[in-house]
């Protein structure tokens, strides 16, 4: 896990957030009981979360619903305050210094719009220009860039309420960037959008990060968002960070199955048995399946290297071709979501 980079732009230290939620029985009886003798329980949404984000990084916060991703974003943008611990944005307390902090950050909540419902988009954007006190020249320049890259031209004259979800999201992203923020928080920015709009938005955000050095903090359930935009991933579960590192590192740490498909030159009736003997020393025992000319070996790469497995099988069978399937982040995240991901530090590859 990585933590505590020097010169961090965002610093979270032992960040904990507890919500007090009513505990109510079901039905009318429960409602009446709660009216006269309310019972509450504390629900810990975040538990001792610590991380640093450096300027110019693109970081994805990933985890199942209720993992604490959105709560973390809300604490970083200063909307809510932590129960304990601290968060600093360029040294500022985002809750206590909300107005100063809001000039440094841009925020997009996929399920909410910052455009005024009944006003034309251009009027909403102009209003944001006034609120952020953006010099007219800079405003025009940024709006021009956003209009070109996000193809906003035909949308600017329309009222927000008449836009489709994808159109609205493109306008919302432009709205969040008008004041040239140094950090962009995106909470599920592509939720519910079609493939083409998603691709355009990813491309735009990625360009803002790479070309303009805007720090990006993204929460998303969409793996394409994560892989296209981010270099780093913070995996969260039950209010805690279970992994924080590069996309490559997450694959290395959590990928516990590697699949190698061997295409044979000729049919070998006892291929499965021969491979099983050849790999008898590999632990845990690999899974071997044979379909026609293909023999598929699935093994744990944290215990045996692909090279060793391939060498042993090739010494045993007449292999014409082979394919090694790269570890998929999708499977890792799926395991995290359904609670089957084995946490903890992987043992070194032998």
């Amino acid at each position, binding site marked *: 896990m990585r933590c505590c980079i020097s010169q961090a732009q965002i610093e979270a230290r032992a960040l904990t957030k507890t*919500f007090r939620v009513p505990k109510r029985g079901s039905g009318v009886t429960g409602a009446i009981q709660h009216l006269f003798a309310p019972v509450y329980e504390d629900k810990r949404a975040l538990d001792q979360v610590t991380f640093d984000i450096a300027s110019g990084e693109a970081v994805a916060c990933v985890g199942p619903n209720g993992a604490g991703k*959105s709560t973390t974003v*809300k604490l970083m*943008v*200063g*909307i*809510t*305050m932590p129960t304990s611990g601290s968060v600093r944005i360029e040294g500022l307390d985002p*809750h206590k210094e*909300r*107005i*100063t902090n*809001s*000039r440094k*950050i841009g*925020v997009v*909540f*996929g*399920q*909410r*719009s*910052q455009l*005024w419902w*009944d*006003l034309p988009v*251009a*009027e909403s954007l*102009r*209003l*944001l*220009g*006034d*609120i*952020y*006190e*953006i*010099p*007219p020249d800079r*405003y*025009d320049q940024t*709006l*021009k860039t956003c*209009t070109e890259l996000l193809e906003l*031209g035909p949308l*600017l*004259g329309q*009222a927000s309420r008449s836009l489709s979800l994808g159109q609205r999201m493109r306008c919302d992203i432009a709205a969040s960037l008008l004041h040239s923020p140094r950090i962009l928080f995106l*909470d*599920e920015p592509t*939720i519910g959008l079609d493939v083409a709009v998603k691709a355009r938005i990813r491309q735009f955000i990625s360009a803002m990060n790479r070309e303009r050095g805007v720090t990006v903090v993204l*929460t998303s359930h969409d793996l394409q968002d994560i892989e296209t935009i981010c270099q780093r991933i913070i995996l969260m579960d039950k209010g805690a960070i279970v992994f924080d590192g590069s996309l490559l590192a997450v694959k290395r740490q959590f990928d516990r199955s590697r699949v190698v498909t061997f295409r044979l030159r000729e049919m070998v009736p006892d291929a499965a048995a021969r491979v099983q003997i050849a790999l008898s020393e590999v632990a845990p025992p690999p899974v071997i399946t044979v379909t026609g000319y293909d023999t598929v070996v699935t093994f744990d790469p944290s215990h045996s290297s692909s090279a060793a497995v391939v060498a042993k099988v090739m010494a045993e069978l007449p292999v014409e071709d082979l394919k090694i399937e790269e570890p998929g982040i999708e499977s890792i995240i799926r395991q995290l979501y359904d609670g089957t991901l084995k946490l903890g530090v992987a043992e070194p590859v032998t």
Partner: protein
Amino acid sequence: MTTAGIARRPKYVALFSMGLSDALAYRTSAAISWVINGWSVLIVVYVWYSLFAQDGAPVAQFDWQAMKTYLILAHAVNWFMQSDVSWIVADAVQNGNIVTDLTRPADYMLSKFSQAIGGSLVNGTIGTVILFGSSIIFLHLQAPASPAAAGLFILACVLGYGVNFLISYLMGLSTCWLTNNQGLSWVLWYAGRILAGTVIPISLFPGWLQTVAWASPFQATVSTPLLIYLGHDQQGGALGLIGVQVAWIIGLGAFSRWLYARAMRRLEIQGG
């Protein structure tokens, strides 16, 4: 589309302008409210006309002319005061959309105030001017007690607007504790109309209710401007009544700041 040639507006002026544009988007709704409010004023005036017709004797300090003027002006001033900020804040807290306001570099209360004035100009002020103007022409309203009273009446209306805004804003913030403030809003809305002297002048209340009314901030919204207009401001004079309004604005403003800070600590926005 750019802003080339368009000057930057101060942020709260821009928000005022947005409130105005937003309200104009629903001009049909505003026009319907003008008609309904105007009609309800006529009904109230007619009820009092019937009561005075049975026995023409003045009630408290009010003869028919003064009562007619009071009732119409009370509705007009109340109309001017009306603000949906309570509902706007409550809705934003409940559905979580308050996050968009809180991520902008603007003071939350001043933003809501600027927007409310913009909205009131369309929904309240235009209707008020129509009602006031047509009543002067057709119903022969009593003139202000003096030119000074006319000027102080306008000042008292502006200050009353501030008091009313702060009450509504505080009701909206209460959602952070109550989850749903609808019940409190309705109770305060009805009680407020009575204690403000919108339905009948406070001097016609029973003694104990008069004490409650004078101790509440509501009287500073409608009753104060009307007492000044009619010259019924013997106790403390017009400037004394305006001083009370200013005191309420300072007190409620400080309380709003304190409550906002506490509300933001309690704010729980579920979901994304």
